[in-house]
């Protein structure tokens, strides 16, 4: 890409800067300010330095929430990425089947996040839900509100239901971008179906799959609404992830200082992940 220098560029990006800075910079500065103070009420605050950070970093409940978060993100990535690729490979390439499949695949992405929770809340209940009733009929004592393992499984299935489509659609876009000539060359060489996947399709998919992987990693890291509706973080703390814990602290207990310190640590982790994503993407652009 041969881009030129032009003084007009800054004027063109100025509106974006203003709009985003208003909603991003002022709150971020405020969070930094809160994180070093103990706040009792309007105008009543004491500077405490790095005390909250020290406390938060040693908070065992937070460690547990972080561990659960990692478990959750790792689990859904291990299911959603291979499943998404498989779906992308199985999708039809022409005919009315294409539109049909695309629309159904995209449907879960357009459901408001709390309604996703509601759908699975209803579906999983043993008394009125199809899924719950089916499991009961098979002799299991499935109950996502009481049993931690069941709550986990329900959350995982819900997330797979909600987001695998994203991976599949990204993979589909990547596959469509492969020139027909590549396949023909492979056929002439007498390559097997698996060999075509391994040596033609997978390398071409690397770009979109990395985007998909990092998008899913980051979005699952900030998941809030769906578990909030489905399990409310329970039973006990079994499905309390980082965002739930943070919101509980900030809104529920009004511990502004510790919550702000927590927010900043959380934000730094996301920032580092985001930097990896960005370096990868632009490295691809320059080549």
């Amino acid at each position: 890409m041969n881009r030129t220098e032009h003084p007009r560029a800054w004027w063109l990006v100025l509106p974006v800067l203003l709009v985003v800075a208003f909603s991003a910079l002022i709150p971020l500065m405020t969070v930094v300010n809160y994180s070093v103070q103990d706040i009792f009420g309007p105008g009543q605050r004491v500077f405490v330095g790095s005390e909250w950070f020290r406390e938060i970093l040693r908070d065992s409940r937070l460690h547990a929430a972080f561990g659960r978060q990692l478990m959750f993100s790792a689990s859904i990535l291990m299911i959603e990425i291979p499943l998404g690729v498989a779906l992308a490979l199985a999708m039809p390439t022409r005919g009315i089947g294409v539109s049909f499949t695309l629309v159904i695949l995209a449907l879960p992405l357009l459901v408001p996040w709390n309604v996703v929770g509601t759908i699975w809340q209803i579906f999983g209940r043993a008394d009125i839900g199809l899924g719950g009733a089916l499991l009961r009929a098979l002799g299991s004592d499935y109950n996502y509100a009481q049993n931690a393992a069941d709550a986990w499984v329900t959350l995982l299935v819900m997330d797979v239901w909600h987001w695998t489509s994203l991976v599949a659609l990204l993979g589909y876009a990547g596959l469509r971008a492969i020139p027909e000539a590549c396949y023909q060359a492979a056929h002439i060489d007498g390559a097997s179906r698996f060999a075509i996947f391994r040596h033609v399709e997978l390398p071409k998919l690397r770009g979109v799959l990395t985007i998909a992987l990092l998008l899913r990693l980051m979005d699952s890291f900030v998941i809030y609404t769906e578990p909030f509706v489905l399990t409310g973080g329970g039973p006990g703390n079994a499905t309390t992830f980082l965002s739930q814990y943070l919101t509980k602290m900030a809104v529920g207990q009004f511990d502004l200082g510790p919550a702000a310190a927590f927010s900043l640590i959380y934000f730094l982790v996301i920032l580092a992940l985001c930097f990896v994503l960005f370096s990868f993407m632009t490295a691809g652009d320059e080549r």
Partner: protein
Amino acid sequence: MKFRWRSVGLAAYLAFLLIPIYWMANMSLRTNADILGHFRLWPQAPTLTNYMTILTDPSWYSGYLNSMAYVVLNALLALGVALPAAYAFSRYRFLGDRHLFFWLLTNRMAPPAVFLLPFFQLYSTFGLIDTHIAVALAHCLFNVPLAVWILEGFMSSVPRELDEMAHLDGYRFPRFFLTIFLPEIRSGVGVTAFFCFMFSWVELLLARTLTTVEAKPIAAVMTRTVSAAGLDWGLLSAAGVLTIVPGALVIWFVRHHLAKGLSMGRA
């Protein structure tokens, strides 16, 4: 034979996607007493009572109107500021351009819970609480970066020669941008609008924080009314079904560009 198995797998997955939605639709066509009393795979005596309740009670349907209002406002706002910026990112090299792009991207990724704390106070200070514009502006936090990202991808696939030819033909920049360049990337604009719609429509945490009565989104109305009424499953399901309908309609119009848009115009 191999091809058959793949189709069967795909069909099974599509069924897995549809069955929970079907189940909610099933619930929405029955009364609460019927739902709690009998287990049925399909409604025996389908009734539209739940839908009638929602469509005639202002406290319900105003939720839909509020959601629509801020979603449309947000899409217009995001597109308005993102179009020139995306052009700048795709055509010009300027000091700190990559860092700026990265900073925008971090806002798309940041957990809304982090910003929740001071958001309410910030918007109170400007007297914006409980207005549609407040939610629209707050959703710009993640939609503007996304819009810039997608549009930049689409714009970069338009050859630079177009810009140069227009310049030689004596077009001034604003006129070139509106009459030549925009029509060239109209599918990109459509896809971007779709994604702004999508992410603004599905978001609840910020929308709920910034509104109390006048601009309350439907998703928040759902949670409140349900807890007050002691869980009316039929009504809850009907409201849920109605939140899916706009999304389903919109997908139909952008179905051919969906995949490309999802890969941010880069695949």
